[in-house]
Every structure is written in structure tokens, then in C-alpha cells.
């Protein structure tokens, strides 16, 4: 038997830091912190039986946005009919969607009943028709989509501030859906066709 008390020798921990450093570096390397972001869209349902139906839409309710193979943006509605720059598109779209001055050449204001809010006067029947060529550049198409989205969200924000006294993002969910009902997204993309290319 030894001498009564014996000290337990302390474990040498100086290498723990190195071990965990190696682990740390491994995770640092493999990690991908990039959160995905993008522009959300909903595609229309696919209906194989749908024949090209002639939709009866009044001319004043339609705005056509065409992006051709040279990436020029051509806009046509009741008041404008020309090639524009991307930067102009937002304001043109806003004027078209809201029709603030009740122009007879822009979409008609109609009574529209929104669940949970009541009747509002808005341009329910407006349609923005977006047409592209097969050789249109994706970047241009994306910018067009982005500008149109911006037009909608600025209108929504303005209406939300006027009605609820808050920014759109600060509203609760039901209020947001009310505002979305007032200015609902009516971008329609034509079925693919070949525009202006030699057959």
C-alpha cells in the first residue's frame, strides 16, 4: 500500500482546442450560408382541353408588354403605344393599374366585394399581358417581371397607408389579403408562340 492520499494527475487538455479547431474548420468549409432568394410567381393551371378561347376583354382593360428578340420592350395600352426603357415600365404600369384620373382609355373602376372588408372601387378587370420571344434574353424578362411586381407592391403600399395608416408589410395577414384583393396580380403570360421570327 502506498501513502494514503494520492493526487490524480490532471489530464493534459492542451490539445482539445486543436481538435475542436479542426472540427470547426471542417464545418466552416462545408457550410453554405447562402439563403435562397428570388421572385415568387404562380403559374396558371395546365388544361390540355382548353381550346384557345377568345376572351372578351375590353380593349381599355388590357396592357400588352412585349419583349422581342432584340430585347426591346414594347408597351401598348389605351394611352401609350411605343418602345420604352425598363425604368419607365413601373410608372406606366402603376398608372395603368390604378387609373387614378379615371381616364376612359384606361381600365374601368368597378365595384368589387372583398371578403372581410367590403366593397371597393377598383380596376378588377385589368389584365397585363406579357409576351416574350423564344430568343428574348432572360435577364430582360426578369427585370420586366420585377418592375411589374414593384408597380403592384407600391400601389398596395399606398393603399394600405391610406386605408389602414400603416405600411403594407406592417399589416396583419387578413389586412394584407384585403389589400392584395384591391390590387391583385393580373399578369398573364401568353402561351408560347413565335413572334417575329422567320418560320
Amino acid at each position, binding site marked *: 500500500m502506498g501513502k494514503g492520499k494520492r493526487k490524480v494527475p490532471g489530464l493534459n487538455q492542451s490539445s482539445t482546442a486543436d481538435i475542436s479547431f479542426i472540427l470547426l474548420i471542417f464545418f466552416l468549409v462545408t457550410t453554405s450560408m447562402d439563403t435562397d432568394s428570388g421572385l415568387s410567381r404562380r403559374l396558371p393551371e395546365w388544361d390540355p382541353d382548353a381550346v384557345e378561347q377568345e376572351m372578351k376583354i375590353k380593349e381599355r382593360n388590357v396592357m400588352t408588354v412585349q419583349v422581342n428578340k432584340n430585347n426591346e420592350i414594347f408597351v401598348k395600352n389605351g394611352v401609350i403605344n411605343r418602345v420604352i426603357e425598363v425604368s419607365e415600365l413601373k410608372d406606366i404600369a402603376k398608372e395603368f393599374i390604378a387609373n387614378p384620373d379615371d381616364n376612359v382609355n384606361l381600365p374601368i373602376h368597378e365595384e368589387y366585394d372583398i371578403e372581410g372588408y367590403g366593397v371597393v372601387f377598383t380596376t378588377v378587370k385589368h389584365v397585363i399581358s406579357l409576351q416574350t420571344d423564344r430568343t428574348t434574353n*432572360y*435577364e430582360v424578362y426578369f427585370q420586366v417581371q420585377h418592375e411589374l411586381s*414593384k408597380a403592384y407592391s407600391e400601389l398596395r403600399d399606398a393603399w394600405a397607408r391610406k386605408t389602414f395608416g400603416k405600411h403594407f408589410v406592417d399589416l396583419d395577414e387578413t389586412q394584407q389579403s384585403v389589400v392584395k384583393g384591391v390590387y391583385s396580380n393580373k399578369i398573364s403570360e401568353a402561351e408560347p408562340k413565335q413572334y417575329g421570327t422567320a418560320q
Partner: protein
Amino acid sequence: MSKFRSNGKREMPELNTSSLPDLIFTVLFFFMMVTSMRDVEVKVQVKTPTGGSEIEKLERKSLVSHIYIGPPSKQYRAIYGAAPRIQLNDYFAEPEAIREFVISERESMYEKDKPFMKMSLKIDQGVQMGIVTDVKQELRKARALNIVYSAGKEKKD
């Protein structure tokens, strides 16, 4: 005066490093939590466009499936050429394969999540719309209607 004068040699006290492993472990755990291993090797070059205020972050990664469209990376050029291709999971595909891809992705999701499935389209800026339209038509046929045009947010302007 002599009270403050140092008396000859003095040893530098050693820094106590016993808490260093704990510190590093904390950082390690943080990275272990946020990490998500890259599951596919991207074989196409994709530089997504940049937008501004309308770009939303995608929450809940488990709902999102990716479709990459772009010109093949350098090492695949010899075999596949430089024309933009579609990449699903780990392989190049034709637009017709998208339907099967959607079905298998849907299969791997929880029942309650299925209606919220999102397809993230990571499309290179330089791609022409033709291939994008084909993909969108196939997605419609596969009833995967929620799509996201993947894009970065511009730096503060």
C-alpha cells in the same frame, strides 16, 4: 519612490487558456447548426439576375427544389457543348424529364407539405427565354405551379 520601482526580473504571467476549447466548441456548434451540406454538384454556370425590393427570402428550405439552367461548366463543354442545358439533381436533362423530377421530389416530401412545394428556377442571366418557357410549360403539366425566379438582392443603392 522605490515603492513603485520594479525589483529586477519579473516573469510574464502565463495566459490561462483553459476556457479556449469551450469557446471554440461554441463556435463549432453554431456552424454545425446552420450548416447544410451541399447536396448536388452544380454542373452549369449560373449567374442569377439581381433585383431590388421585390426579392423575397425563401423560408423553409425543405419545400424548395432546384432546377438549374445555364451553359455547362468548362469541364463538361467537350461533351455537352456550350448551349444552355437544364440540370436536375446531378445530371443534365431534357425538358421532358421535369415531370418525373417533380413527381419524385413530391414523393420525398411530407404529405402536409406537398401543396406548398416550390420550384426554384436558378437561371443564368444570358439564357434565352425559349428554354425557360419550355421548362415552365412542363412545370405546369406536372402541376408544380409555385415557382421562384431565383435572384440575388442588389447591394444597397
